[in-house]
């Protein structure tokens, strides 16, 4: 059952097209990830869906309600965590939560079960001013404030930006737990490794969705021949790989290079090529693509 529906959405700021013709649906209860770098249009999209911005063209509905005409009702049913910290730094943790509960016409107690797991972690600091919290705690508070009124749909705009990998992992674990309460979650992020944790994802660049599917399907649909390549003298290796006639792209991926090869190229071909160039300890493996590989291949195709 679709709870968010977008049709032919377009939005420009002057000459810059932030969103170029987006259409997609989000199913009730799923974690839908919008994966893409800054400037891709994620924040603009969220602002339109949360009724804060008007699109130039197109339509969107949240639970059947139109984002333009029925904005007042939508605002009662959604939770929104914008990209930057947007709570009151001079109010305490508790005061912030109470404030948001009240403007949503509810109390902390009423929906406490939703935020309990999250809030427990910051409860010891409940009298501290929100501005004095660490980044991770601010996130948790902001999430609690967005959940306190039991929204049907939760919009999280880059909630893990600038946060270390361990805290990011914890945050996503919290999101997974929310699923069991039936809340639909739309979350945007530039981190490709978080994509795997969503039910479905949309890979977005320059205001367009390049591909929408479950992470696994996206990986399975990757059509290039892709290998990981490693040897001694990695710095030099990059250039030689790029110069290699049957290599399409070469990109660093941590310890190794991910290399896409032209059709009919083989691993042993490449191995020979590199051995002849004087490389040793050469390890070439055929691998499954990661979401990042898929994303990069899609952006290269666009160009």
């Amino acid at each position, binding site marked *: 059952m679709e709870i968010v529906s977008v049709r032919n959405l377009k939005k420009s700021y002057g000459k810059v097209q932030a969103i170029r013709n987006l259409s997609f649906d989000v199913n009730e209860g799923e974690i839908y990830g919008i994966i893409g*770098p800054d*400037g891709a249009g994620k924040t603009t999209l969220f602002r339109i869906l949360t009724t804060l911005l008007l699109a130039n063209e197109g339509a969107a509905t949240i639970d059947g309600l139109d984002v333009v005409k029925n904005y007042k009702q939508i605002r009662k049913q959604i939770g929104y965590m914008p990209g930057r910290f947007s709570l009151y730094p001079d109010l305490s943790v508790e005061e912030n939560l109470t404030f948001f509960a009240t403007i949503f016409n509810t109390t902390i107690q009423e929906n406490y079960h939703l935020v309990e797991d999250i809030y427990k972690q*910051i409860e010891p600091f409940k009298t501290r001013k929100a501005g004095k919290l660490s980044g991770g705690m601010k996130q948790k508070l902001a999430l609690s404030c967005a959940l306190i009124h039991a929204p049907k749909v939760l919009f999280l705009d880059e909630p893990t930006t600038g*946060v*270390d*990998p*361990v805290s990011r992992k914890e945050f996503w674990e919290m999101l997974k737990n929310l699923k069991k309460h039936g809340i639909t979650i739309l979350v945007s992020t530039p981190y490709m490794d978080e994509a795997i944790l969503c039910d479905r994802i949309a890979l977005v660049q320059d205001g367009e969705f390049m591909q929408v599917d479950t992470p696994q399907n996206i990986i399975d649909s990757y059509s290039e021949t892709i290998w990981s390549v490693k040897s001694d003298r990695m710095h030099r290796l990059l250039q030689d790989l790029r110069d290699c006639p049957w290599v399409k792209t070469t990109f660093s991926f941590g310890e190794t290079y991910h290399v896409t090869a032209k059709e009919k190229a083989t691993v042993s071909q490449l191995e020979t090529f590199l051995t002849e160039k004087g490389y040793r300890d050469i390890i070439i493996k055929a691998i499954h693509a990661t979401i*990042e590989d898929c994303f990069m291949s899609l952006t290269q195709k666009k160009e």
Partner: protein
Amino acid sequence: MNKDVIVAEGLTKRFGDFVAVDHISFQVEEGEIFGFLGANGAGKTTAMRMLCGLSHPSEGRGIVAGYDVYGQSEQVKKNIGYMSQKFSLYDDLKVWENLSLFGGIYGMPDKKIREKTNLLLGELGFQDERNTLVKSLPLGWKQKLAFSLSIFHDPKIVFLDEPTGGVDPVTRRQFWELIYQAADRGITVFVTTHYMDEAEYCDRVSIMVDGKIEALDSPFLLKKSFGVETMYDVFLQLARKAKRSDN
């Protein structure tokens, strides 16, 4: 043996009772790419600020580019480059104006600024954007420009504070290729990042936990000693030990 361009000995920073950086000691060699990792609140930013001459240590010593960070902070600043994710360029100035400004601030003669500007714009492929206001550039281009700006005056060391946050994957890698080129030219790169794959690109990595350096070695040796496959796993093991991950 390569000269050490950064030497930290028992570097400490206190804010009242709170010890943000707790007696850290390490050296960084010339031309190294040194990754400086840690969870939020672990003390990374505070430590970096001390090394850049932006904040006085409460205790201990820091020598950067041959100068003491405590007494000779102005010399330190002249010899380093700095780029942070939040800011490095003036949005309402044009590309060449930014270059000219920073060149001027670091005392480069006009002729040199002109030459280097042309060279840089050529290398980056930005010649057409010479007169574009920075705010109109896509993020990836801004980051590349910002990095080039930070080494415009050929400093000995460049400090990069999460330079690739939010940038698309292709540009991220292009950025790191710029870092490699700089390191090849002998510039030491001191970089913090939250991308664990980037940690693998460094020559050596240090990981801060609760104000102390809990690990410092090459990625290869770190993974070996923790018995794991990736830097992410190394980080995970160390960060879990942290008591003040959310302080």
